[in-house]
């Protein structure tokens, strides 16, 4: 067991994946010699060589498209998109090719690729560096979408994603890269597509993922001081969603609040609300509420604190839920 940052945990997980399977390759801009702009891939090129840890030319479509060719030939590419806002040039390759190759080939051709994307805001960045585009990918059949919220999950989930024969979009909450946590590199990990109850509670369920998990845990602590017991569920997997865990929690508490940075309209919260009202209709004491980014392009960093859900907005939603 050791304490490490999420960045180090990802680095360790990637190192282990590279060591365990010679077919695993990394590719992306600046990931080799520099070790990545967030140092996630630091030291890996020196250890595994330029053939396996590749500095790519600057073109996201090219990075993903060539990775398709490599994957079709039996390699397991793990490509990095440098920032969330730069995934869009690769969107066509991901949605038109990566997600569909298995479907169009009767299951014969799989694309066992991982696309790593640092995402989310709260780091005072300029435009295009604080996006949350996960819904576009969760909406695409054929892809899997996961996001760790802490170093332990980061360490294990990256390895599990690499080992999966399906393409996985791996969203890394960049504002949490430097936060530390305990990582047991020998423990049996949770299955990749399972949600986790982070803190149990009885009065309401907070459903969240990625950077907002920590925010929700802090909100639960504050709520406890007001005599309210909140259950925080880290979804971990956005596609597929762990329906059973979500429904079990909401049936127990009768109240759900979804929290995510991404724009509210047509975000993951909308899908969760739809599924919950369909399956838990008779157990709901209040409508499913969502605390999300507003329906704006991500604003200038000076006002991002007001844009992003925080402890107060989460608890305000809990208040409204409990008032029903």
């Amino acid at each position, binding site marked *: 067991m050791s304490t490490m940052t999420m960045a180090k945990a990802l680095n360790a997980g990637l190192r282990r994946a590279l060591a365990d399977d010679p077919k695993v390759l990394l590719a992306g801009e600046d990931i080799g010699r520099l070790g990545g702009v967030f140092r996630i891939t630091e030291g890996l090129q020196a250890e595994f060589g330029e053939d396996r840890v590749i500095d790519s030319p600057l073109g996201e479509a090219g990075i993903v498209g060539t990775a398709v060719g490599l994957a079709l030939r039996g390699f397991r590419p793990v490509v990095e998109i440098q920032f969330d806002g730069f995934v869009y040039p690769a969107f066509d390759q991901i949605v038109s090719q990566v997600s569909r190759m298995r479907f169009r080939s009767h299951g014969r051709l799989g694309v066992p690729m991982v696309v790593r994307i640092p995402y989310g805001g709260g780091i005072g960045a300029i435009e295009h560096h604080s996006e949350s585009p996960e819904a576009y990918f969760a909406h695409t059949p054929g892809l899997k979408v996961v996001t760790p919220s802490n170093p332990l999950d980061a360490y294990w989930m990256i390895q599990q994603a690499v080992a999966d024969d399906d393409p996985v979009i791996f969203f890394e909450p960049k504002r949490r890269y430097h936060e530390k946590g305990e990582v047991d590199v020998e423990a049996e990990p949770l299955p990749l597509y399972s949600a986790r109850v982070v803190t149990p509670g009885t009065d309401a369920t907070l459903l969240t993922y990625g950077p907002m998990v920590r925010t929700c845990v802090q909100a639960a602590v504050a709520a406890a001081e007001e005599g309210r017991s909140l259950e925080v569920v880290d979804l971990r997997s956005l596609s597929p969603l762990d329906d059973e865990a979500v429904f*079990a929690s909401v*049936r127990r508490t009768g109240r759900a609040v979804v929290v995510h940075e991404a724009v509210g309209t047509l975000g993951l919260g909308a899908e969760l609300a739809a599924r919950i009202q369909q*399956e838990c209709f*008779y157990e709901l004491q209040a409508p499913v509420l969502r605390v999300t980014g507003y329906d704006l392009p991500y604003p200038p960093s000076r006002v991002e604190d007001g844009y992003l859900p925080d402890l107060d907005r989460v608890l305000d939603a809990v208040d409204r839920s409990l008032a029903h």
Partner: protein
Amino acid sequence: MNEFKLPDPGEGLLEADIVSWKVAVGDTVAVNDILLEIETAKSLVELPSPYAGVVLAILADEGATVEVGAPIIRIGRPDEASASVPSPSTSGAGPATPPAVAPASPASEALLVGYGAKSGTATRRPRKGQVADAPPAASVPAVAEPAPVTVPPAEPAPAQGAVAAVEPAPVPRAKPPVRRVARDLGVDLATVAPTGPGGTITADDVVAAAGGGSAPARAVSVPQDGERRVPLKGVRRQMFRSMTASLAVPQATAFVEVDVTATMQLIDTLKRRRDFTGLRVSPLAVFAKAACLAIERVPELNSRYDAASDEIVLPQDVNLGIAAATPRGLLVPNIKGANRMNLLELTRAVNDLVPLAREGKVPPAALSGGTFTITNIGVFGVDGGTPIPNEGEAAIMCLGTIRRKPWVVGTGEHERIEPRSVCTVTITFDHRLVDGEMGSKFLADVSTIMSDPALALLF
């Protein structure tokens, strides 16, 4: 013999024009020989023959507009020539759906009709029997959609009696409107026995539980120590609660004795009218109408206080509550927009309400949103009293027993005593919203109408 139907020449077109035939009846054609040229919305297209043989019939004229799927030519063996009757279609509307002659395989017939935009139908596909009878094919899904009998595996079985310490209590299942009713009636859903599909609690279940019903769990307990103990539940609990709340309201009462003989005569007249046939006509309806008319002149009697904004709210409509003694206790269902009803409509509304109240089947919506209440204590033989306004309302008015009493009628030298039908009308009002003058004026107006209903025309 094969019949060639006009295929969709490309991407969703529904019809095409025959430009020119390249073959004639009697010609021998090979597969892929060009049969005709058509014009679509996009271009000129030559159509090759799918069949080899002799042209037996040409079924569409040059210049005709033909729908995709319509037969245009028959090709077969020479000896089949006499069997076919050419019936060229005229220009304009093409022939309707093709006859049953099936070329090649059924699958290709569907495709010969083309890939065009399917026009769709306006009728539903017929279902087999009851939808609920059709179980899913092969393996039953682990978690079905709202199939009545499926219990999600995650939910603990509702346990009666002993519940293990680690098992959470079963969650009562009720949809949101039912939960609202339960809250309004002060019912704890956990104590309600569900009778709805999938073990859900219905609104009727809640109301039954509120009324004390016949469930043994809510039965009156056996007397002990010379005392009887009755749990405070449901409607009685609600009454207790709301009457306690009304203690906070400063109330004043006023009453007036009214000669309602003219009202009784009106009622006789109404009973004989055809439009009142089958309706129970009583002074209560006139009383209700009088209240609504009087409210128009003194709307404060219909108001309420909004604490959040510290304002007096004067609604346009009168949602007239009528206090009803039901087997479950006091309920006050209200008639929405009673002010907009004429006497006939009001009579009907009251008629509809009475049996519902008696059977405890008042819909939850009728139990909320009231703005003014009337109560008929006269049915108990009581003259009057100091009624307590319904929670949140500014006033309540009650009608006492109508008795025959000696009454002074006439003026001057014609002054005399006659037996008249007389009753007492009492109002209690929230003195924060209604002052004495308003209350008295209101009462006087009601009295005026009840004593001479024709004067209602003045309102």
